[in-house]
């Protein structure tokens, strides 16, 4: 069943709904284009031996089909050692819903309800939940029964997953069957109470299933966020590497499960999948599970690598997600210009500014507290009011901070906010109450010049806090020119250069492919940002490059 072409034929035989497509291996580019035209655009090119979105491309016209075919077969060859491809109809606006099954050697099989896995980027799942907000009892049963029928038809024995695409009218089509335990299995375990691994071992040993279909409940709600070492601001997640210099899982929050294979000090390299962990929260209903997920994400300390917490935290609070109005196109639809981080409301902005101002004052006051007896007596500046200037993005705000005990009164743009915290400046997590709202924030960096990076509502914000005097004097500081990035191409991630498509002196058009970088077995095509002549090429196929390394210069 691991072979997609074979499995599709088998599914048809078992009377499972399948997607229209070409049930065979596509020989070459020309054939790919011919088949694509037959099925009708859009089409999807997939590696026969594929999985995890590798070797998969969507094409909307002949040219994209040709290009997609080329990349997919290369990727398939490098990832799976098998470059066979297949083509099928691409279903617009689909949801990805899968059924967990469990089958024994005696021919018994159960379906353990569904998992909603529609939130994906580059065809890889990032947020999953069980159950789905979309399925009604009938559809669920129909899908479950077809999944079980398929498993029985192939005499499958173990835990497995039958993936379906579900359209807006709840028509469902068989996608593929995964003959293994899947990444997102914990959400099923949460709502059914079954330990899938234990059950797998039992049936492998030859025992028959302990449960009847009627015994399988849907109890509560579970959400899983896949926490990846990747930069969510680049194509919803390009791999990032580094050493986890600090790592604390939010296990102190009730209803939280973290499955991870790494620990503080672990190295995330370009050679393996960049997943850090699976963060699962469980609640009596969806709202509780989501609330806990928010809290868990805020309390998750990951330092040393760029991670996708900003993205997943945004997804789980997005009104469309909260309503359950999602599809596999959720990310590109909600963020057509790419993910840009959390959009602060006016009040959240004030909260962030006030908290940062208070944190600054707290650190400044600490700088004055020397514990050793002084030969020359201290002359502490007995400052009651701290007049500050706080910069966030382009906005510069004036703040006046007054401290009394653990409460900082912050007057910000004419509004008063009370920031209360017993914060420990050495701690990664800072629990703070602004007016009546309790939040956990993280101070990712703080320097002498007042620059701070604060993780607030999942997103890291860069702020600059200065005394009013320093801010006034900063106006005289020269503005340093930033380099023109349109004429230079830097590697957006660490990886290996697979192909360089240009030579110095060549004319390139805007959007033309310049080179291809492979990282974590994904090939990424880098294109020209403008039409220009190639000035210099600083890389060649086979070399390993780091993030930000100069690859090609244009004139």
């Amino acid at each position, binding site marked *: 069943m691991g072979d997609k072409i074979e499995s599709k034929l088998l599914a048809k035989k078992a009377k499972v709904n399948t997607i229209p497509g070409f049930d065979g291996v596509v020989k070459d580019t020309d054939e790919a284009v011919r088949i694509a035209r037959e099925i009708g655009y859009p089409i999807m090119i997939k590696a026969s031996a594929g999985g995890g979105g590798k070797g998969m491309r969507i094409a909307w016209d002949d040219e994209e089909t040709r290009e997609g075919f080329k990349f997919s077969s290369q990727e398939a060859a490098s990832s799976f050692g098998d470059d066979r491809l297949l083509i099928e109809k691409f279903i617009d606006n689909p949801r990805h819903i899968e059924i967990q099954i469990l089958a024994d050697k005696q021919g018994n099989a159960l379906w353990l309800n569904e998992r909603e896995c529609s939130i994906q980027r580059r065809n890889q799942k990032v947020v999953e939940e069980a159950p789905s907000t979309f399925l009604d009892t009938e559809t669920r049963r129909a899908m479950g029964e077809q999944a079980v029928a398929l498993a029985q038809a192939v005499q499958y024995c173990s835990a497995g997953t039958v993936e379906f695409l579900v359209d807006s009218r709840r028509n469902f089509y068989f996608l593929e069957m995964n003959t293994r335990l899947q990444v997102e299995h914990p959400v099923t375990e949460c709502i059914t109470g079954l330990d899938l691994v234990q059950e797998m071992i039992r049936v492998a040993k030859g025992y028959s299933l302990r449960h009847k279909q009627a015994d399988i409940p849907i109890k509560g709600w579970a959400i899983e966020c896949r926490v990846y070492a990747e930069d969510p601001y680049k194509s919803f997640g390009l791999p990032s590497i580094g050493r986890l210099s600090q790592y604390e899982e939010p296990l102190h929050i009730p209803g939280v499960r973290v499955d991870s294979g790494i620990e503080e000090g672990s190295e995330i390299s370009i050679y393996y999948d960049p997943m850090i962990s699976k963060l699962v929260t469980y609640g009596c209903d969806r709202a509780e599970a989501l609330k806990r997920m928010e809290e868990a994400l805020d309390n998750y300390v990951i330092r040393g690598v760029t991670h996708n917490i900003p993205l997943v935290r945004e997804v789980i609070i997005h009104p469309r997600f909260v309503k359950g109005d999602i599809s596999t196109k959720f990310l590109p639809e909600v963020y057509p210009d790419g993910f840009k981080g959390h959009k602060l409301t006016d009040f959240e902005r004030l909260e962030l500014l006030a908290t940062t101002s208070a944190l600054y004052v707290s650190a400044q006051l600490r*700088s004055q507290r020397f514990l050793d007896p002084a030969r020359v007596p201290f002359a502490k500046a007995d400052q009651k009011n701290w007049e500050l200037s706080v910069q966030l993005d382009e906005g510069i705000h004036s703040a006046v901070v007054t401290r009394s005990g653990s409460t900082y009164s912050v007057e910000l743009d004419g509004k008063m906010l009370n920031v209360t915290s017993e914060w420990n400046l050495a701690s990664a997590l800072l629990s703070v109450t602004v007016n009546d709202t309790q939040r956990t924030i993280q101070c990712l960096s703080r*320097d*002498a010049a007042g620059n701070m990076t604060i993780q607030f509502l999942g997103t890291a914000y860069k702020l600059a806090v200065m005394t009013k005097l320093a801010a006034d004097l900063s106006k005289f500081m020269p503005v340093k020119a930033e380099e023109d990035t349109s004429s230079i191409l830097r590697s957006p991630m660490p990886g290996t250069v697979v192909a360089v498509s240009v030579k110095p002196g060549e004319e390139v058009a805007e959007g033309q492919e310049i080179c291809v970088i492979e990282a974590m077995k994904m090939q990424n095509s880098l294109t020209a940002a403008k039409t220009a002549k190639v000035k210099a090429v600083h890389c060649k196929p086979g070399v390993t490059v780091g993030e930000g390394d100069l690859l090609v210069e244009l004139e």
Partner: protein
Amino acid sequence: MATLGTVMNVSRYSIVLNVGFKKLLRTSGCFSTFKGVGFQRWCSHTHLSVPERIEKKRKEALLGGGQARIDAQHGKGKLTARERINLLLDPGSFVEYDMFVEHRCSDFGMQAEHNKFPGDSVVTGQGRINGRLVYIFSQDFTVFGGSLSGAHAQKICKIMDQAVMVGAPVIGVNDSGGARIQEGVESLAGYADIFLRNVLSSGVVPQISLIMGPCAGGAVYSPALTDFTFMVKDTSYLFITGPDVVKSVTNEDVTQEELGGAKTHTAVSGVAHKAFENDVDALLNLREFFNFLPLSNRDPAPVRECHDPSDRLIPGLDSIVPTESAKAYDMLDIVKAIIDEKDFFEIMPNFAKNIIVGFARMNGRTVGIVGNQPKVASGCLDINSSVKGARFVRFCDAFNIPLITFVDVPGFLPGTAQEYGGIIRHGAKLLFAFAEATVPKITVITRKAYGGAYDVMSSKHLRGDANYAWPTAEVAVMGAKGAVQIIFRGKENQSEAESEYVEKFANPFPAAVRGFVDDIIQPSTTRMRICRDLDVLVSKKQSNPWKKHANIPL
């Protein structure tokens, strides 16, 4: 005058006086009629009372070379001498000296009234940084380009003398075109007076130079004699002779920036210890830096309130050293994990990167960190890294700052460039510095400690107080391969011999059984161990035999 409010930072004393003057002026009613500067000056000699003249001189002093020159200074992206002081010191803490001093030159028309500026081309005094005393001078480029007159030098010497007497650091803000040519030898004498004080204060109070504009010719030797020199990117220069003279003498074409800019001195020459983005960034960073320093050699290393638990375990360290001996890792990761709050003020981060030096705190107490950096040139010791390390170690020793040394060193760098350059005498500096240091010395061998470099890096033999080895430590004369090639020259089964050597020597035991390391410790416990040792070593007393001074191989 609208800008005066921001420019001004008068002492409390003068504020009180000013109020009095305003009353006076209101009653006399003559000030309001003043228009041009010339008229004011004429008036001051004939009609103004003494209090009025004091007031007027103060106002003039606060404006330095005048608003036009202040605007020009701002136009270059630089702050004025007084703005720099105000930003560096705690608000309202500056106490100014010698505001009425004027130059005494009478040649070339310098005696004319319009060529006299109260305070001349430098602002001096004392104040506080986070409540702690500091003496400061700040050269005023708006007055004769900050050039050094006899009076200018005299003002600097006055605060330097007092700083030594009281026992407080001196911060010099340099922004000067050089000698006051009109004064000739008087100006040269002034430089020498400052140099002498720099030398006599060395090791008594910390001296810090901030280069915030040009600093050329003889003037460069004052910063060179101080403990730390910081620069501002793009707006500061240090050189003996400028590009024009260079062209005429050596026929080299070179820009000011290439010859003596911040990048040159922090990455190539090693003259400066760090560079900052702009004036504001530099001054704010200097406040942070100042907090690490004791006020003088009479004071212990300062202890600041600390929130980071001293017994914090760091599980990540147990796996940080790669299993392959040849693979690099970042020593900064280790340093930052161990110190308080990852707060590391690195000195010379861009020069001789194969050694890391800088200030940090352990349980609140300032410590000096020295570490080989395996990521750069395998962490070997060469001429530049030895000199960089030696100077830092001597500063710490002079000012009672405990030293924590992290060792992963494959040896000294071989080659003709190094030998011809004098690696023997330069390497000896680091050896000398560690050996003579009497402050608490704690050493952690993380991996390689090979050959002579092992001895040098604050080994037990050089009076290390607590010397630890991680389980990954290899204390040996050299790497296994090289050793086997010598011991078994021409013999077969070299690879077998190599593994025997690794088994015998490439581990911490040979050193541990001899007591050359005090313990083999779990890396995750390193912070806890060091904090505990430092608490014990607070009362360490050790001295060297009496001498006039030692003779470090310069």
